[in-house]
């Protein structure tokens, strides 16, 4: 037996004490580094204004003037959630709210039971900048007021298909979309989880129930074997972008403008809005900004909402958010010539009313889920 086989053992107490000391120091330093500083907090979704050429400085460019004027630190908290998730979070925090303003609740979400419970109505002083149709489409009670808006429509990749290979794209109908050929190259989003997906479902329901007078469920029955339904917009986009068999997708009417801006050439994305009897239809999504109920700084919050309707913020929306600014004072960049404009289509929002949606939304979503899981 040599001493090598029985090495001297150190007292484990020192090792334990060392580990404890190191852990305490590490934890304490993380705690200090990440310690919260008092701030004016705005909740929004994860992709808010990050689509421009310099997303790192967008908050400074958009809200720097407000910070100077009121001497506060504005923190745009892009929660890693979509608007539904943000409302769920506001609800969870309702006993002790930390946010003052919320941006991103849209004209369908506001109809959902319980959403208004986390908000406080407020009418901005400069509300006249916003077209009253938009205000009424979003929320006549002003729990939220419009921040931006956009059309939800079918887009396609011109590298894969075009109006020569598929003439029906020029005047696309739901009947065209239901043919196995088009349906199997079409991706949409789950209306239960995604706002463009829900807008598309409402588009389809409005066209079938209101324009054609037929049962909307038939269409989904006929396409469910072919159509690709992804949980959210990003998953759908990834599929549309990477899978050569998927050439069409439910997305936004500004996508060709984005395509042109990103590539610096003519867009490779085109729009095929839904037609019915010679008229073009689309659903408009209006995203709102609102006051959080019982938030810590209500006066500052009201001033902030007013500020968000000013040109400083509104003119940054087109190239950073890829939506139309709510304020009619804001000018649009040239690349928006490629986008489809709301005045080029008939809005389905006028056909399918807020009351109808409020009453039927849950039932429609349940029916949809039953068809798709059936």
């Amino acid at each position, binding site marked *: 037996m040599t001493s090598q086989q029985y090495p001297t053992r150190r007292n484990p107490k020192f090792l334990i004490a060392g580990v404890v000391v190191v852990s305490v120091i590490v934890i304490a330093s993380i705690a200090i580094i990440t310690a919260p500083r008092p701030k004016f907090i705005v909740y929004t979704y994860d992709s808010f204004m990050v689509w421009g050429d310099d997303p790192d400085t967008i908050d400074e460019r958009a809200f720097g003037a407000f910070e100077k004027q009121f001497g506060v630190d504005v923190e745009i908290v892009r929660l890693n959630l979509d608007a539904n998730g943000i409302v769920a979070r506001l609800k969870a925090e309702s006993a002790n709210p930390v946010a003052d303003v919320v941006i991103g609740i849209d004209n369908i979400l506001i109809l959902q039971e319980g959403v208004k419970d986390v908000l406080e109505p407020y009418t901005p002083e400069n509300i006249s900048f916003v077209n009253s149709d938009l205000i009424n489409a979003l929320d006549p009670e002003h729990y939220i007021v419009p921040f931006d808006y956009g059309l939800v429509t079918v887009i396609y990749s011109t590298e894969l298909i075009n109006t020569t290979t598929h003439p029906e794209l020029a005047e696309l109908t739901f009947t065209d979309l239901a043919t196995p050929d088009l349906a199997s190259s079409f991706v949409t989003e789950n209306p239960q989880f995604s706002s463009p997906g829900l807008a598309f479902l409402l588009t389809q329901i409005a066209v079938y129930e209101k324009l054609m007078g037929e049962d909307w469920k038939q269409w989904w029955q006929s396409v469910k074997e072919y159509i690709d339904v992804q949980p959210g917009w990003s998953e759908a986009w990834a599929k549309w972008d990477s899978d050569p068999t998927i050439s069409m997708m439910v997305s936004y009417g500004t996508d060709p403008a984005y395509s042109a801006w990103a590539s610096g050439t003519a867009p490779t994305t085109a729009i095929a809005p839904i037609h019915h009897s010679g008229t073009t239809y689309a659903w408009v999504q209006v995203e709102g900004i609102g006051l959080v109920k019982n938030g810590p700084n209500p006066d500052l919050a009201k001033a902030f909402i007013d500020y968000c309707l000013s040109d400083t913020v509104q003119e940054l929306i087109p190239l950073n958010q890829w939506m139309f600014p709510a304020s009619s004072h804001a000018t649009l960049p040239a690349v928006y010539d490629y986008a489809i404009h709301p005045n080029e289509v008939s809005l389905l929002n006028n056909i399918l009313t807020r009351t109808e949606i409020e009453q039927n939304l849950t039932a429609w979503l349940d029916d949809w889920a039953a068809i798709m*899981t059936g």
Partner: protein
Amino acid sequence: MKILRGRDPFSLTSLFPVAILIIFVVLPVSYVIIIGIMDDPVGAFITTLSSPVTQRTIIFTVLQALASTLLAVILGLPGAFLLTRLEFRGKSLVRALILVPFVLPPIVVVVGFLRMFGRGGIIDSFLMLLAGSGQSVIDLSSGIFGIVLAHTFYNIPLIILLVSASLIRLNPEVEESAEILGVSNWQKFRHIIFPHIRRSLFAASILVFLFCFMSFPIVLALGQSRLMTIEVQIFHAFRELDYAGASTLALMQLLVTLSLAYIYIKAGSSDNEYMGSTSEIKTLSFQKMPMRYKVTSIVYSLLIIVLVTGPFIAIIESSIYDPYVGEFTLRGFANLLSTGIGGGLLPLMNSLMYSTLATLLTLFLAIPLAYSHRSKTYGVSSTLSSLTLLPLGISSITLAYGLMIAITVPLGLTTYPWPIIVIAQTIIGLPFAVRAIEVSLQNIDPEILDQATVLGASRFQRLFFVELPLVAPGMLVGAVFAFAMAIGEMSATLFIALPQNITLSIAIYQYLGVRKFVEAGASAFVIAMVCFFAFLILERYSDVTAGGSP
């Protein structure tokens, strides 16, 4: 079996983890469920349970979990044998590589999986080339088949690791004696090997089943809204502020998982006569294998390589290849060093920090829990076991919501939530760590501990120099799982985190959302590599301490 002298089986040390579990799991979740159900006590149950969607969801949830577990066991078991018994160069590398799938965040698995098995994926392109057809030939990624395959891919490592941790402790003398007595291989398996690995195999299968039963992002992405697990439906209900529905579903889910835990504990307690052994590993070199074993193991290895490394290769490709522009780039890796909005440095640091803290905390809680599971006091062991398994049976969305309204908001931690994130990540990895440590504890020969006492070791010395080194392989396995679960955890972190607290898993999700595929791919690659090297180092270390001379 001798009871260790001088040890109170339900000692004060296990009270701390129990208190943590009660405060951070039992209370918040009961709070959410009770509040939700009080919202509409009778109506919620009737509406939820009578819905054909819910009924289909329940049936599908159980069936896919059963199928996935079965497939993972069938494919994982030979792997556990090969990895324990076969001696070959680069074994620790292979062992670490096989673990990689388990640590990938589900969203990354989905991307890798689609690129490998989906329409237009690597396998499909290969078959299209063979068939000389321009049409897509095969799509292995959608529907129930895709979900089961993805779950299998995800869980094979769990089976391999847990079973081989037990197999490594099988005394070779027993097998040699059997061989001398001329038993067949099947008899050897049936009477010697199987009884030895039975507990760990059963434990691993239960874990896999629970994992698939609770599955969320994979089903969400591959199920294409046609197929939902209960967890997906809970998520949906919370988003619609339907707390009554969410609570009903969470309660149902909990009843199923707790019944499973009960069966599992019952089955385990009938095995009290079990005598563990501490011994050397019996190994075999490839050359010495009989021919037909050689062929089967090569075929098997090829299958596993395609299934397990395929999606991983797809991830490597996506970390340097931008499909949007169609060019190779290192932008994704540069982004990981950037500190701006959407930069990867903060999430990377957060991920490493939280996961390391969560791993330490997990071990700290898991060791006393694993010890107290051996308690002979009536009811203590089974109560603790179910308490430990509880996090596995609770939907992480319900847990996150509970932590939010019962802990974070009342304590004013809303703008400062990282301690809660670490706790959530700890809770989620705890059952895995406790199991791994428990298994290796059971396999310690009590004689050795008694010898240490006889030789004059104090309790403290015996614990640190004899017991813990023997448990070290189990602790390392536990630590690896805790780390993996923490770094991959998404749904709870997503709900609790503010932007300054985001982890790499969440960042990947965001990158995919804003079309930054290379950034997402590079982040996924880094997570995989961090875990891979952590395992590699742990493997080396555990070989030294566990395989030491008898």
